[in-house]
């Protein structure tokens, strides 16, 4: 087993198991830490702009990756979305959302570092995870230059291999060989991205699990009965 296999064959499962089990354990044992740790009360400067840009960007990126990577190739074709269109959308949408993440993220990160009140309330991990997300986004954004190159040559194999690889991981049949020969920048981005899952339960990112989507659909009045 070489390094490539360890990173793309074993590491994803370490990251995902940590992500799921870690989140569960934290949710069960440390309920009071299950929160977004918002610093909005400490300082509102740039907050409205940066936080919104960042969050819209990262939600776009998240759902883009989710749909783009996990939808089987055949489904795309059946929906009439050609590989060229797929890659086009990925480059275009990913580029915009990625830029938003970087822009919003950097402002938030600088605020976190240099705003005295926010800095005083920041833990080591708060500073790190935001930096890590920005780095991941930067590397992800830089893949566009390669992807654009591929697209110009009508060569979609890298994209197809990447989605197949991701699907293989999700299907618990990780096949790192699919991506052994792709450009290192993709591998770097994937490594950063996988690591986010690894760090996830130890950071404020857990608030993602508790996104209050239910509020969109809840009844006006909820009566919570006492459990007997």
């Amino acid at each position, binding site marked *: 087993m070489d390094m490539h296999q360890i990173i793309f064959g074993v590491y994803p499962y370490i990251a995902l198991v940590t992500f799921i089990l870690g989140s569960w354990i934290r949710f069960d044992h440390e309920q009071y830490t299950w929160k977004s740790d918002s610093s909005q009360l400490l300082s509102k400067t740039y907050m409205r702009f940066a936080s919104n840009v960042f969050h819209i960007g990262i939600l776009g990126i998240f759902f883009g990756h989710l749909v783009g990577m996990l939808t089987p190739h055949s489904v795309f074709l059946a929906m009439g979305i050609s590989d060229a269109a797929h890659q086009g959308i990925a480059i275009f949408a990913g580029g915009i959302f990625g830029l938003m993440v970087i822009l919003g993220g950097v402002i938030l990160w600088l605020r976190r570092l240099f705003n005295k009140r926010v800095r005083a309330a920041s833990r080591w991990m708060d500073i790190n995870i935001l930096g890590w997300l920005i780095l991941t986004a930067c590397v992800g954004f830089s893949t566009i230059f390669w992807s654009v190159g591929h697209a110009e040559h009508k060569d979609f194999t890298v994209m197809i291999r990447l989605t197949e690889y991701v699907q293989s991981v999700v299907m618990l049949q990780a096949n790192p060989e699919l991506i052994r020969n792709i450009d290192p920048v993709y591998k770097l981005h994937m490594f950063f991205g996988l690591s986010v899952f690894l760090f996830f339960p130890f950071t404020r990112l857990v608030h993602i699990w508790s996104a209050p989507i239910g509020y969109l659909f809840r009844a006006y009045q*909820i009566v919570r009965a006492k459990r007997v």
Partner: protein
Amino acid sequence: MSHFLDRLTYFTHPKESFSDGHGVKTIEDRQWEDSYRNRWRHDKVVRSTHGVNCTGGCSWKIFVKNGLVSFEMQQTDYPRTRDDMPNHEPRGCQRGASFSWYLYSPHRIKHPMIRGRLLDLYRAEKKSGKDPVEAWAAIQADTAKRDKYVKVRGLGGFVRTSWDEVLEITAAANIHTIQKWGPDRIYGFSPIPAMSMISYAAGSRYLSLIGAACGSFYDWYCDLPIGSPQTWGEQTDVPESADWYNSTYIIIAGANLPMTRTPDAHFAIETRYKGTKIVSMSPDYAEFCKFADLWMPIRQGTDSAAFMAMAHVALKEFYIQKQDPYFQEYARKYTDLPMQVMLRPHDNGYVSDRNLRASDFSGNLNESNNPEWKTIGFDESSGQFVAPNGSIGFRWGEEGKWNLLERSAGTDTHLELTAQGKAGTEVVSVGFPHFAHGEPDLLFRNVPARRVKLADGSEALVASVFDLLVSQYGVDRGLGGPNVASSYDDASCAYTPAWAEKVTGVKRADIERTGREFADNASKTKGKSMVIMGAAINHWYHHDQSYRSIMNLLHLCGCVGQSGGGWAHYVGQEKLRPQAGWAPIAFGLDWHRPPRHQNSTSYWYFHTDQWRYETVKPDQLLSPAGKGRNKGYSLADYNVVSTRLGWLPSNPHFNKNPLELATDAAKAGATDEASVAQYVAGQLKSGALDMAFADPDNPINWPRNLIVWRGNLIGTSAKGHEYFLKHLLGAQNGVLQEGGVGNDCKEVNWIDEAPAGKLDLMVDINFRLNSTGAYADIILPTATWYEKHDLNTTDMHPFIHPLAEAVSPGWESKSDWQIFKALAKKFSSLAGKHLGVRKDVVSLPMQHDSPFELAQPFGEVKDWKRGDCDPIPGKTMPIIKVVERDYAQTYSKFIGLGPLMTKIGNNIKGIDWNTEQEYKELASLNRTVTEPGVSFGMPSLEEDIAVCDSVMRMAPETNGEVAHKSWTALSKKTGLDHHHLYEGRHEDKITFRDIQAQPRKIITAPTWSGIESEKVSYTAGYTNIHEHIPFRTLTGRAHFYQDHEWMLDFGEGFCCFRPPVDMQEHKKVPASVTSGPHLVLSWITPHSKWGIHSSYQDNLRMLNLFRGGPYFWISEEDAKSVGIADNDWVEAVNANGATVARAVVSQRVPRGMALMYHAQEKNVNVPGSPTTGKRGGILNSVTRVVVKPTHMIGGYAQLSYSFNYYGPVGSNRDEVVVVRKIADQDVDWLERPLTPAREAQRNPVGIGTK
């Protein structure tokens, strides 16, 4: 218990919807709600309270969770007041509610600590084979070694050590001091026992048993309203706050009720709902002003002028224009107004002299007992001078006539108030001392007088106090002559409303109307007019005049002693209700009598060398009307005279160890107490022996050991803080001048080089590290108010309730009782070898409420040192007592209730009773001492609760049987039956467990002048008026007139207006301060909203509420004039030192004053002062205490010393400072290591050692 798995039952959730699907019922997990419930969930609730020096006496619930105090809440279970009145509960304030933070705060002292350098020295000495006492002696004998730890006081350097080691060092220091210098060189200071009386008693019992002196606090804090002992012979007695509700007209002067009497303020507001008018007097727009119907913005320090003018109106309209029958009767029966005063020729007229006495008449008016002490009135029915019942001569040496019935020699009398227009009278011109700036110092006015033939055949002119008083107030009553008011608008005549407007700045119409309304209301309601007064008018040098001016108004209106009327003074006054049961334990009276007591103001005035800087010269204060035999004396001289005449105590007593004095006396053949006293008198007369205060800077007279517990002596309680640092402690200090102006004393020896570092050892016992701890050598951790058993009473409500151990004392701390018990044990183990059994000569002043208050008749000052008389102990000099101390038995005595309780019994305020029954009960209630020693088999005082129960069992307030015995004793004295006062509670016995369950109302006792009853609220003077028990004064009545020679010397025979004294400290500040923009402001230090009484301002919760550090307030206009903006750093400087704080710029404050809240400490956010170069200082860095000779009088009826009752007050409000802005970049936090150069620079640059 899983949060996650519980949620995976989504499909099995029954879901009912209602209201067309707008509502839904679910059974989802609700465990999260428990986090909110748990916040308030607790394991137990314990009743306790707080006490920095809080008068609130609020009972609190202390909630304990997992062995830690989690929060506190007000108790609401006080017994009710009456059906027609609001109740006392709930009590408590935001400060008290924040105390639980303090238990676990960074300020908390957790372990015994000692100055590291001292510990090194001590251990080195011990290692060389010395025993503890020898080791301590070796350190003290070597100046270099001593300096090593003395000079770094206040600069940190504490290390942790064991209880065993610190107690050993403390005990060794005490023993060495007793041996080498004398027990009276050890001093203990702890304030106001009522808030935690057992903790107070712990230290005072230990100190009293070893012969050390305990210092007073009430006078030192300037909370003692000395007008009260002068007028009533009563330290202080005031109504409970509920009685405000019974009033129908209230003037509030200088007491900020909602802010500093938070739990009681509701009564003042509630009484307005039934129509009571409230008038407020305050220079600033203080919080209480907004609850008033009228705010009189009065110039600070001029209160007496306003009240004199109000009384001028009352006198004119209710005594002269018409004679109000209620007022007339009250004045005749309960005041000295009908008493006759002799007139002494002066210039072309007369001045008032002493009261006429029975002894002035031939045959003493048939009064054989104490005729010199029986004052005289003129009986209208017989047309004769008579000696009416109740004067002090009837109090001692006979029984049955010490009462206020209108009788004399068994016959009914009707005393005459005024002689005006009566047959056989004439009108003479009498001079009245006057002190207003720019006005004559003697105002002559016409007074009706009678001629009387004296025993020696000569003739004298006498006038009634009333006739003199009317003239003193400048009221025109048709006798003509100068200096009487043509109208209220006559601004040229002192004490008219127009004149008062000139002095006080208050509109004349307001003064006139208030005076009239106050009197009119009192006339209609029979005395339900009240004045609530406080620190703001009490902390002035001449506050006695402010207070007497109020008391005069109240007495003229018949208000004192009436429910809803009278004075209500609330300044740190606290009521130690079970005082009679407490005192024997607190001062070791069960083993030795008497204990050593000291009035602290004199003590610190001398021992911190503030007298060396004295700018106030008594000659400027004297009146031309006095005899002035002490002209040219300094304030310190007056104090020395006072101690040698047996008026005020002095510790050390003499310039000799009292143990050696006893040995020398024995060698000279003095075998018993009387011959020892003779020996001492002889030594004094020959000059071989002298009073210690006559040479306070001589090392033999220095205080050597100081133990402070429950207080902050060196910080917020140190008027002249920087002088404490410089001379007493030898620490880095900010005194900006050299002593020298005090170098004109006649009675005090001047040593050119002032001592620095008089104390060998200072021990601080506390739970918080404050300025006192910072300057101490040893800090001992004590239990907080939630960690010990103790008792709490107050005068604001009539209940007794406990402090209790809700959690065991944190870290290594112990309760004060256990600390001193352990110290006593250590002391005993070392004392046997070094001290053994010794005789100790104790010098005692002539005490109030004892027969010695009749020591010096007529108020004449006879100084044996000047040859006026011989030194006779107990007559012309202090009483000399001999006490035998078996030092090795100190511990055994500490833990057992001693035999004198059955041999001599107990007493309070001149009433005696036996305690045999209570002694027996305590032996079974608390069990007996089982450790071998002198106390074996005696009632145990080992545990804190046992001590609480011993106090309550022996006090009339908490044991009906004792109430019975004490009232029986008093009934015998007065000849009247007072037993009905406690009827129904004869069988009550209140124990600690009872008050743990619920606060208990106390039982009416003769200790106090009010009663507990279902019909009236507690109010001061009630039994004097309604039971005819005399005031404990010369005449037995409330005094308008003071006839002591020194009173007359200082022109204070009658109350008068005296402007604030000029301390001149602000004129001696460095040019660097005055060269830039600056303000000259009077320095006002009132109580704080955010941390006084029940918590401390350095409590994080309190700091969060305001500026987070020191601050003082100035007015908008003043600030603008020198470019100070809100929150700027500012410095207040005068010759005493400097303090740095942030400016609070507010329209609430008038021009001309800086207002720094009291008790702001040096420990949070205090930078260095650019002027002194030392840590920025505290509110007391710019103050210096100045003593008043009239407060030193003794041996004369109500003007006799008693602990916390009489003695100079530590006034601090007359001070003026220079204020300037400090730029932010000039703020120096002094965060540098201690270098030898810095260590050597103890005084500010350029200031030497004098």
